[in-house]
């Protein structure tokens, strides 16, 4: 009981520290991995520096977050600061007038703007206006592989699509899932489409589709890319039941580090997932990485990459209301 009383007093004192007049900043983000402290660190550091402002971080699982943000923004109930991926999804919110233009503030503070490579800001720039700044790591997509399995079955790192298909056959014949895929989450499936279309037709193929050019989605690059994906599925390229495996479950990474799958195509963030779940697997140099292979006769540059430039934070243009914390009892929401 005494402990409970002490905890209660401590909570009230902490709340009292957020005195009347303290502005609260609601920040929404996803959980990238359970032990990733980047986003909590940002909030904790900010709160330690400012007595007149207090940031509250709420984190959600990836897929539910996207849906929650759509609904909240549509109802003008979005947070003050929201997490995103730049590109098309951010542009939809920009087009709807929901995102604050950061350009004047960045231009007024060249030292702040210089932190970010122009190529990364480009992912959040529309009609010359910057609507977000990067907050974490660059996130290209590439292959992770289990070096022990590659050594055991005499497989070399694939340089071409034909090499990859040969590796698929070797592993499938040996009873090992060649490639782990969180197919139920859908977005991991699209990584294959992004890479193959680019390798076959170069960036123009996707640019045509993005700009709504007639016939772009049925161009030769898309047809051939999807034919190669069909070939890969028919060859047993992915683990049995890949269609019902979600990426949020981290099952694809687990298949890799437990030796039940040889490869996984995923973004750079997967390294942290694997390193946290199987530190010895990484420490003992059993984890390898390689770039997406070239596709013979394709016109795309084999050095092109797909993925996310980074994750970004944007400011909601019309949040619920300017909030002022008026009561120590108005505690922050529980972080998931």
């Amino acid at each position, binding site marked *: 009981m005494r402990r409970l009383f002490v905890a209660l007093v401590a909570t009230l004192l902490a709340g009292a520290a957020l005195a009347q007049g303290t502005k609260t900043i609601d920040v929404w983000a996803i959980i990238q991995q359970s032990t990733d402290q980047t986003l909590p660190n*940002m909030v904790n550091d900010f709160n330690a*520096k400012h007595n007149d*402002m207090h*940031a509250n971080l709420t984190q959600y699982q990836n897929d539910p977050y996207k849906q929650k943000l759509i609904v909240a923004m549509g109802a003008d109930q979005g947070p003050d600061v929201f997490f995103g991926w730049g590109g098309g999804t951010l542009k939809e919110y920009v087009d709807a007038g929901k995102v604050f233009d*950061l350009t004047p503030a960045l231009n007024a503070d060249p030292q702040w703007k210089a932190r970010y490579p122009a190529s990364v800001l480009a992912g959040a720039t529309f009609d010359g206006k910057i609507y977000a700044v990067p907050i*974490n790591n660059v996130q290209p997509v590439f292959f992770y592989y289990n070096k022990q399995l590659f050594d055991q079955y005499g497989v070399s790192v694939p340089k071409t699509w034909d090499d990859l298909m040969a590796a698929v056959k070797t592993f499938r014949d040996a009873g090992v899932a060649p490639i782990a895929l969180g197919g139920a989450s859908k977005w991991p499936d699209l990584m294959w489409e992004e890479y193959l279309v680019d390798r076959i037709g170069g960036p123009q193929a996707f640019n045509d589709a993005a700009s709504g050019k007639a016939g772009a989605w049925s161009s030769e690059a898309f047809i051939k890319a999807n034919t190669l994906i069909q070939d890969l599925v028919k060859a047993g390229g992915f683990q049995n039941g890949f269609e019902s495996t979600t990426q949020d479950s981290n099952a694809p990474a687990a298949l890799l580090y437990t030796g039940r799958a040889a490869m996984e195509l995923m973004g750079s963030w997967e*390294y942290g997932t694997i390193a946290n779940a199987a530190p010895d697997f990484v420490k003992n140099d059993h984890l390898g990485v390689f770039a997406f292979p070239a596709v013979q006769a394709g016109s795309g*540059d084999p050095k*092109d990459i*797909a993925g996310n430039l980074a994750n970004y934070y944007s400011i909601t243009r019309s949040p619920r209301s300017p909030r002022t914390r008026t009561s120590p009892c108005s505690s922050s929401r529980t972080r998931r």
Partner: protein
Amino acid sequence: MQFLKDEALSDQQVIAQLKVGQVPAAAGISDLIDQYGSAPDFQHFVNNLVQDAPNFQL
């Protein structure tokens, strides 16, 4: 705005991210990877992949 200016890839955040094996989307970090990176081989692989890419398909 102050939150973004203070925290979005500040020096402190960049170093913290390098120490946990990430490659922050900040300008000029190659030397910092050697200095602070916890997985420098992996971090240089990622950094080079991005630096060398003629196109980054979102």
